[in-house]
């Protein structure tokens, strides 16, 4: 969906930025107060990232910024010029025709109900998988274990700990954990 009102010209309160969103450069004139989340949802019509709290408390807006997961509601779009942004709309392959294995696992496991937290859960899980693969420890990682060489094994406790920034009020957690386990097997 295209912006429905023409963007205002740059002035003291607006700037031009280019975000590379799901692989495509998108030039925007943004209000300096505009969060990445509102730039995506209202400016670019990419409403996959959800606004649950606007305060970084629920994770529904999780996207990948330069490959790392972030709460889009806590980032100002003006500060992200040139960044790579991946939203749930960019997760599927072949222009959306072929689901990512994690999306398929969410379907297979019925890992959602209302679906409002789902895009954030998906993006967060993708970021989490990359973090674990890079050896980042979590609170659930055994501190007495030898320093990780490469990937941290993702036990269910590891998955639950690392995904705890993404709330789901429908309580789909057990199925989300199963879905994540499906793609790491």
């Amino acid at each position: 969906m295209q912006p429905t009102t023409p963007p205002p010209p740059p002035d003291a309160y607006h700037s031009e930025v280019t975000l590379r969103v799901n692989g495509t450069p998108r030039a925007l004139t943004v209000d300096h107060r505009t969060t990445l989340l509102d730039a995506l949802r209202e400016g670019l019509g990419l409403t996959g990232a959800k606004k649950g709290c606007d305060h970084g408390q629920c994770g529904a807006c999780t996207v990948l910024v330069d490959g790392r997961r972030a709460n889009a509601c806590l980032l100002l779009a003006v500060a992200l010029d040139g960044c790579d942004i991946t939203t749930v709309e960019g997760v599927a392959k072949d222009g959306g025709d072929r689901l990512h294995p994690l999306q398929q696992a969410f379907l297979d496991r019925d890992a959602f109900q209302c679906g409002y937290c789902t895009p954030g859960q998906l993006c967060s899980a993708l970021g989490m998988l990359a973090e674990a693969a890079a050896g980042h420890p979590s609170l659930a990682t055994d501190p007495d274990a030898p320093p990780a060489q490469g990937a941290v094994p993702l036990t269910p406790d590891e998955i639950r700990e690392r995904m705890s920034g993404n709330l789901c009020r429908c309580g789909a957690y057990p199925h989300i954990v199963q879905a994540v386990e499906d793609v790491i097997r």
Partner: protein
Amino acid sequence: MAATPHTLGTPAERIEGRDKVTGAARYAAEHTPPGCAHAWPVPAGVTCGRITGVDTSAALAQPGALAVLTPFDAPRFAAPPDDPELDVLQYDSVPHRGWYVALAVADTLENARAAAAAVRVTCADHADEPEPHDVVLDEDHPEAYTPEKANGGYPAHRERGDAAAAFAAAPVRVDVSYRVPPLHNHPMEPHSATAHFAGGRLTVYDSCQGGNAVRTVLASLFDLPEDRVTVVAEHVGGGFGSKGTPRPHVVLAAMAAIHTGRPVKLALPRRHLPSVTGHRAPTLHRLRLGAEPDGTLVSVSHEVTTHTSRITEFVEQAAVPARVMYGSPHSLTTHRVVPLDVPSPSWMRAPGETPGMYALESAVDELADALGMDPVDLRVLNDPATEPDSGRPFSSRHLVECLREGARRFGWHDRDPRPAARREGPLLIGSGVAAATYPAYASPCAADATAHPDGTYTVRVNATDIGTGARTVLAQIAAAALTAPLEAVRIRIGSTRLPRAPLAGGSSGTASWGWAVHRACTALAAAVAGHDGPLPGGGLTVTADTTDEVRRTPPYARHAFGAQFAEVQVDTVTGEVRVRRMLGVFAAGRILNPRTARSQLIGGMIMGLGMALTEHSTMDAAHGDFTESDLASYHVPAHADVRAVEAHWVEEDDGLLNPMGSKGIGEIGTVGAAAAVGNAVHHATGVRFRELPLTPDRVLPALRPEEEPAL
């Protein structure tokens, strides 16, 4: 029918699933008509008082500001709303903190927010002491009274026999008090609406549990014929009761759209939700259970005190489940309510049953202790043949089967029944059980079904899918009635352009909508069978309306039942309680889609886990506001809180419900879950906690009473 794949009882995948995992599913605030403006509401900063002025000049001077509506200049409603919480910007007094006193509208979200922040509201009490307010509930409150009815239309007060005398004479007695704090629904999608008024027609995308009620309210308030109002709710990000009635956001969005002539989008900030979208009222419970030494109950008393607001009477019917659960010749079940200067309470997942069964099932556990009896056996012993309070026969009741099946699956009988007997290092381990119940309701509904010449079907009903899988199960019901493959059925829901339907609430959606879908499709199948030659180009359409049929149902007691089991660990160093596993077994009629049913039941149990361990709101006495109003302070369960949760069911064949033989499953998963956890904590520690939630600040001092607090 049996040969048809994907019909009733099979685990069909959610029809809208792909849209939800790709981000294609659009929710209420994700529609942006050309020229769409944004609105931001301004809540009252006082608890009660009178607004003497609203200075909008700074707000209107903000870039992009289009309008600021205030109680002094907002458009007047054509008729007052039935729900006083919807009477926004119509008068100058403030009934509770958070009440909306202005609405800013601007071209962008950022400008609307800035304009709202620039609105200056003055109140009569502004210069002096705030107007005195009273927001604190207690049993002895002088304004407490016994209402005529509690929520759901139940009589507030019922007595059979002489409960007090029978209790006094009972050989074994439990007389205990339990407290449940205010709780918040907090669906992940905040209440949102996008409204568009053009050509005398109002179109609203609303985040609601039922569009027909929203349409009726908007038509009445803005003096429009109902056929000129369309309410669309295609995808809804949860509700749990808080979207069951029209809420102020949709009224304000429509008002702003009509006033400005532009489409207007309004999404409530998360922190506003506790004040304007209802909450579960706090409940104070006194339970008196009297029994013979063999465990037979002779007297059951459940007395509830709760609060409501000054502008509406909502009484959480927490004593009502005690009328259903256990046989006893003497019984008292009664409610008292105190009107306070608080936001209006309303529905939250299983109103009445959730707090009521927490208290009742905890007290039953205490009685089992007092008797030295197994709590499963005690419940089985007192399972009644007919509904205790009404004397009506049950359409079906398989609580005992749930308890036995649950005990078997959970390994209940392997446990050492003595409290505080199992220790793993600093952890105390325990297990608990509780029963669950929820009524099986159904409401009148209309639907239509069309057979197309290409062999496909379209089924239309204004059902709402708030995450239940309504689309999917209705398509299954249709396919079964049509003896057609699921893929041949197109299901249309979520718009008031479709046949009128009741809300997604009271665990009655599938029963109500499915009944009408079943009737329409059954009639359509007969019409197609009787049709000679090819179908006409526009297809063959049959409509159904279940109003008469639903109202003629015979007077049986219709309820789902369940048994909840939990195992906890209690950390004696930190006081932290963690649930290691939960297991529920439910008897809820025929399970129409085991895949989505399991998700709902597990989700309900997890909400009960939150109620037991972390969810807690406080009405601040000084400021008259909920202290925990956002998701950082109000702790809903997170991934790390939830380990093994299993839901199972027993086969239940009940021909006295609806054509599908189903009972609702949306709420019963929550009922009893907190009691099972609390009873497990008692088993682990030997300490009985009687106020939720079981947070470390409560648990630790009770475990280590000999120690001085560290700070």
